């Protein structure tokens, strides 16, 4: 009998958990509504509610034990939400960098700007391809760009500590191709001079990036002309005139990539066909949205997996803590529960009441953990070497509603498991034994 109950419980648990993982928030809302209707409208439901009421009203007397559930689950949710927010912030920063109405053209078989290379002929031919938007003077909005890396001293680091920043040499049309870039301090660099503008994210990470000051890259001195903001991954870069960068870094007339603004926001397919129809070009073209979304995939997945693994191990700990507390709570109320059953209460209201109590505590823990993670980490600045780039990418952790919902789902799942087994014990314990127990 006992073994059969346990096996049934475990089977039920697996089914419930799988369903729970797949459930969107609308589904959870419907479930909660159904539960509320059942509790209010049926006799068994009202009984469960009154039993739960007794349990919940005595929570205050078991403050320490109840806190184990709340704090344990808050810890799990806090760590999980922080890690997922990191993955989210990283992916979002890169995704925002791209748009569907601009395209990036690389050398054939290249998957990153740094490893691509286009000769002068290709650059000219790409800029002449139909489908590119043109400015008032009829010039195509295409920016041939050079990507190199530069070492700069890290802000607040040791005397000799240097980090890598991506230096992008841009063409004269770069401002029209990327309208999100705006100067927030100083001015644009002057084409033809050894001048730079620096992104806000780069300023945050590296020392000496002050407008009006000179910085040393390798053996050359560059003048910092201004600071720019764009709210995306470009902010972690420093920009200069493509011709000057190419000359300084011995790139000649070759460029890494060409970024273009499309004449028609839905015109990418036509633009790509036109490029591919040109037999002189061997290129790879994609919308910048596709490019940056793809760049973020690997790292995002790694951060997410780490968060879930760490969260899962912590969840095991919290789950057993909850089991412990609830077993103790059920044992303390064994007589009371047995009395209820002796006067005719069925098992179901008792089980539901104990589950409700545990999941209420779990929900509290989930909200606490989520709120803490939001307070501490939302907008927290982090940085890492970004895949497909040669500089440090600075990004902010972003606690989104989806991430918080994920955390709450975990909290409720832990609460469900932590309450189920003690509830089953309370409902199946022989009434006579329980009544005799002290």
């Amino acid at each position: 009998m006992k073994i059969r109950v346990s096996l049934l419980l475990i089977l039920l648990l697996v089914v419930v958990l799988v369903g729970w993982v797949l459930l969107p928030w609308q589904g959870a809302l419907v479930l909660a509504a159904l539960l509320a209707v059942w509790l209010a409208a049926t006799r068994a439901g009202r009984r469960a509610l009154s039993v739960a009421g007794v349990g919940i009203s005595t929570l205050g007397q078991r403050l320490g034990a109840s806190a184990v559930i709340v704090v344990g689950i808050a810890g799990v949710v806090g760590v999980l939400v922080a890690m997922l927010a990191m993955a989210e912030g990283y992916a979002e920063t890169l995704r925002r960098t791209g748009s569907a109405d601009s395209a990036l053209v690389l050398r054939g078989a290249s998957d990153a700007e740094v490893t691509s290379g286009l000769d002068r002929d290709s650059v000219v031919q790409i800029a002449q391809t139909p489908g590119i938007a043109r400015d008032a003077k009829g010039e195509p909005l295409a920016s041939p760009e050079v990507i190199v890396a530069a070492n700069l001293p890290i802000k607040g680091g040791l005397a000799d500590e240097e980090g890598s920043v991506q230096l992008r040499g841009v063409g004269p049309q770069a401002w029209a191709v990327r309208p999100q870039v705006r100067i927030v301090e100083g001015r644009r660099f002057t084409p033809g001079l050894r001048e730079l503008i620096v992104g806000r994210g780069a300023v945050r990470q590296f020392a000496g990036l002050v407008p009006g000051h000179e910085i040393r890259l390798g053996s050359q001195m560059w003048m910092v002309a201004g600071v720019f903001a764009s709210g995306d991954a470009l902010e972690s870069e420093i920009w200069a005139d493509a011709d000057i960068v190419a000359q300084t870094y011995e790139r000649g007339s070759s460029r890494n990539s060409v970024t273009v603004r499309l004449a028609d926001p839905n015109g990418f397919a036509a633009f790509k066909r036109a490029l591919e129809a040109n037999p002189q070009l061997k290129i790879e073209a994609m919308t910048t949205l596709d490019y940056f979304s793809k760049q973020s995939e690997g790292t995002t997945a790694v951060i997410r997996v780490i968060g879930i693994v760490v969260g899962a191990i912590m969840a095991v700990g919290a789950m057993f803590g909850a089991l412990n507390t609830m077993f103790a709570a059920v044992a303390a109320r064994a007589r009371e529960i047995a009395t209820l059953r002796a006067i005719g209460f069925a098992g179901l209201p008792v089980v539901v009441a104990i589950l409700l109590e545990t999941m209420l505590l779990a929900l509290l823990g989930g909200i606490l953990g989520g709120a803490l993670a939001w307070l501490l980490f939302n907008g927290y600045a982090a940085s890492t070497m970004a895949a497909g780039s040669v500089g440090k990418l600075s990004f902010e952790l972003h606690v989104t509603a989806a991430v918080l919902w994920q955390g709450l789902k975990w909290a409720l799942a832990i609460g469900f498991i932590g309450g189920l087994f003690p509830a089953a014990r309370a409902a199946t314990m022989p009434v006579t034994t329980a009544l005799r127990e002290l």
Partner: protein
Amino acid sequence: MKYLHLIWASLFRRKTRTILTLVSIVAAFLLFGLLDAVRTSFAEAGQSANGAQRLQTGSRLSFIQLLPQSLQARIAQVPGVKIVTYANWFGGAYQDPHNQVFSFAVAPNYLDVYPEMAVSDAERKTFDATRTGALVGEGLAQRFHWKVGDRIPMQSTIFPDRSGSKNWTFDVSGIIHSTDKKASGFFDQLLLLHWTYFDETTPYNRGQVGWYVTRVSDVNQADRVAKAIDALSANSDHETRTLTEQAATAAWMKQLADIGLIVSSIMGAVFFTLMLLAGNTMMQAVRERTGELAVLKTIGFTSTSVLAMVLVESVLLLVLGGVLGIALAEPLIPLISHASRGMLSLAPVGIGSWALGGALMLGIGVLVGALPAWSAMRLNIVDALARR
């Protein structure tokens, strides 16, 4: 010591509660073992005895900037330099661009600088004689089922050959066996090809090298040698920056992420929760035993020995769970390193982790037991026996 069985019996007085608490402690220390392995392998990367003798020289400008090959002869003449070699990043991938392989195009004497990589004499000879030869790590060979003598197609994610194709072919001439267990995850997944073949095949390299590795004859002279190497190219258009292998690796790791901060924040959250949980268990245990403790005191146990017994009980609880947890982490760590395919080569749980873990067990045990032990010590026999 003579009270041990008494303490043991009281610990397992309520089996369910103690076992549930133990599982939570095991989970916490399992996580500690894993995260501490991550932290130490990041913190100690490049800190081997062999690594201490090696200097890495790269372009001062940035890590993607190349250096002229002519620098080799000049570095070799710096006093204190035993041997100097060079390599280029090849950026290889097998079959699918996602199957990235750590692959370097290296000078003929590259292996002489890395005693961590053992290659049999016969295979070394074949490699030296084969223009398109490649040496592959043991783990890598296993992963893709390569054998000595196989012709393997590789893509470079960076370098095309003269016809513009990024497909390269290599002959597997030998297998690299790693002799350093700590760093084996890296050498195990490495592929080495000839720099000359690389340079002649791709039009984009033009006789340049990515970085130089120098072995110094005296470790204490390493700083002086590094400065002398950098002085060679000072004020030229290819200035260099020379660091010890340890400093270079540490700088690189730091750019990836502030691992120390992440690990300590997670562990902070874990242990805070754990203290509350174990503390609650101990409080319950002492509250339940009020009567028994009073009896102990009645028959002559001093207040201090009751205090000590409760403290020892809570420390024992933590130590049991903690040792089990870290022991569980031990077999998991190599599995994780293996699954990450050389991206992450975690150090096995070392003395340092055990010591830190042990200190945590004792510390948390005492902290958690303090309050219940105090109340057990202050217990008034008459009140307790009367259950007031």
